[in-house]
C-alpha cells in the first residue's frame, strides 16, 4: 500500500508518537482488560521514556502486559479507571502511595469521555448517587431522584486500537475489542490509532465505519499482535449449549 497519499500514516509506533507525547500529559488508552489494547503504541510509549503521565483507561493492564508495562517503568503518576484488580505491581505502588488513583463507575467513565469529545461540559446521572463517587460533586434532586453532575473528560493524546483503518483515519473495530476505543478517539487533542490492517480509502463500508477519520490524526499498521487472553474459558464438547436459546 502507498503511504505517500496521506500525511496521517506513519511508519511505526515510535514515529507516530514522536512530537506528540511528553512528560506530564493526560493520555487515554483504549481497551477492556487485555482486549482491544493498543499493544504497539504502549510499547512505543514505554520506549519514549515520557514520565509523570495521567492515564485514563478502564483497567491498568496486567503485570507486564499492556499498561502494566508502564507501571513497571514508573511512567504513570495517576490512573483514572473503573477496575484495576488484575495487577500486583499496581497494588504495590498504590499501597506505597506512589500512584494516584481515581475510580469512576465504568459507564460514567465512558460517558465522561464521550462528553469530553462532544463538547459537553457535564451531565447529570443517577449513577453513584449516595455513594463515595458522589462525594465532593454537585447533586440535584428531581422528582425524588438524586443526580450527580459528572464532567466531560479530555486528554492530550489518545492511543487507540482498531481492526481495520484506512489512510484517511476511518476505523472499524472488531467484536468486543471496540469497547472504549471509539469514545476515546473523540476526546483527545491528538489521537493515534494502530490497526491490524491498513487499507486504502474506499475499502471500508462507509455505513460501517465506527470512527470517522476526522478523529484520527495519526495512524499506523501495528507490527504484530499478541492479543493475550486473560481468562480462557472453554465449554466441554459434550456440554449442552444452552446459555442462550437463540
Amino acid at each position, binding site marked *: 500500500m502507498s503511504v505517500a497519499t496521506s500525511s496521517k500514516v506513519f511508519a511505526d509506533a515510535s514515529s507516530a508518537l514522536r512530537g506528540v507525547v511528553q512528560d506530564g500529559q493526560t493520555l487515554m488508552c483504549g481497551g477492556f482488560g487485555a*482486549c482491544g489494547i493498543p499493544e504497539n503504541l504502549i510499547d512505543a510509549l514505554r520506549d519514549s521514556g515520557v514520565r509523570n503521565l495521567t492515564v485514563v483507561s478502564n483497567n491498568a493492564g496486567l503485570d507486564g502486559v499492556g499498561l502494566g508495562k508502564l507501571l513497571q517503568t514508573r511512567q504513570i503518576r495517576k490512573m483514572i479507571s473503573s477496575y484495576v484488580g488484575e495487577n500486583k505491581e499496581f497494588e504495590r505502588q498504590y499501597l506505597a502511595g506512589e500512584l494516584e488513583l481515581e475510580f469512576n463507575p465504568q*459507564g460514567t467513565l465512558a460517558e465522561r469521555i464521550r462528553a469530553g469529545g462532544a463538547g459537553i461540559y457535564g451531565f447529570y446521572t*443517577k449513577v453513584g448517587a449516595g455513594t463515595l463517587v458522589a462525594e465532593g460533586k454537585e447533586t440535584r434532586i428531581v422528582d425524588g431522584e438524586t443526580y450527580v453532575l459528572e464532567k466531560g473528560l479530555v486528554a492530550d493524546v489518545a492511543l487507540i486500537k482498531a481492526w481495520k483503518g484506512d489512510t484517511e483515519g476511518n476505523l472499524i473495530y472488531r467484536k468486543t475489542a471496540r469497547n472504549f476505543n471509539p469514545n476515546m478517539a473523540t476526546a483527545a487533542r491528538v489521537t493515534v490509532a494502530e490497526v491490524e490492517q491498513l487499507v486504502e480509502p474506499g475499502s471500508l463500508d462507509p455505513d460501517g465505519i465506527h470512527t470517522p477519520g476526522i478523529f484520527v490524526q495519526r495512524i499506523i499498521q501495528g507490527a504484530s499482535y499478541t492479543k493475550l487472553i486473560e481468562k480462557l474459558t472453554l465449554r466441554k464438547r459434550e*456440554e449442552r449449549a*444452552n446459555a*442462550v436459546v*437463540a
Partner: protein
Amino acid sequence: MPWSREDLAARAARELADGFYVNLGIGIPTLVANYIAPGMKVVLQSQNGMLGTGPFPYEGEEDADLINAGKQTVTALPMTSYFSSADSFAMIRGGHIDLAILGAMEVAENGDLANWMIPGKMVKGMGGAMDLVAGVKRVVVVMDHTSKEGDPKFKTRCELPLTGTNVVDMLITDLAVFSRPTRKNSFKLVELAPGVTAEEVRRKTPAKYSE
C-alpha cells in the same frame, strides 16, 4: 438444608421471563445462564459492549477479541451485536435492560447495596456495578445469608461503602428469598430453602422485613 450455589443460580433463573434482556454479574450470577428454561428466550448483555452473549467457546474456537465483562472468552449468536462502552452504558443507564442479577457483600433493609469495596483492603474498583444498579429496571441480588464468620449480610444499614441506594428488588440467599413489589415497599420473606425455618432466618437477619 441451605441452597447450594447451583440452587441459587436456578432460583435466580426463575426471575427471568421470555424476551428479557439481562445482565449477569460475575460469580454465581454467571451460572444463571445454565438454568434458563428450555424454550425461553433470554438475551444476555455484556457491559463491555455486546448484546446476545453466547456460551463459552469450544477449545480452539476462542477469540481474544470476544470476551464478556468478566473477561472470559465467549461466543456470538446470530442475534449478536457489538457497540462501544459509551453505547453499552447508555443502554444500561437508560433503563433498557430488564433485569440484572448481581452478587453482594451486604444488602440493607431499605434496598441499599454494597458489593464493591472493603475499607482497608485493596480496592479493585466498582467496574460497571454502580451503573447497573442505577440503570437496570429490576435488580436481583444473590448472596450467602451470612459471611464465612457467620455475620449477617442482610442488615439494617450497610456498613460497607455503597454501590447504590435503594436499588435491590429481590434478595436470594442460601436460606431464603426476600422480595418487594416496588422500591417504595419494604422487603417480604417470600420463600425458604428446604428445611430452613422462618425462625432461623429471623435469627440471622438484622434487617427488618415482613413475613
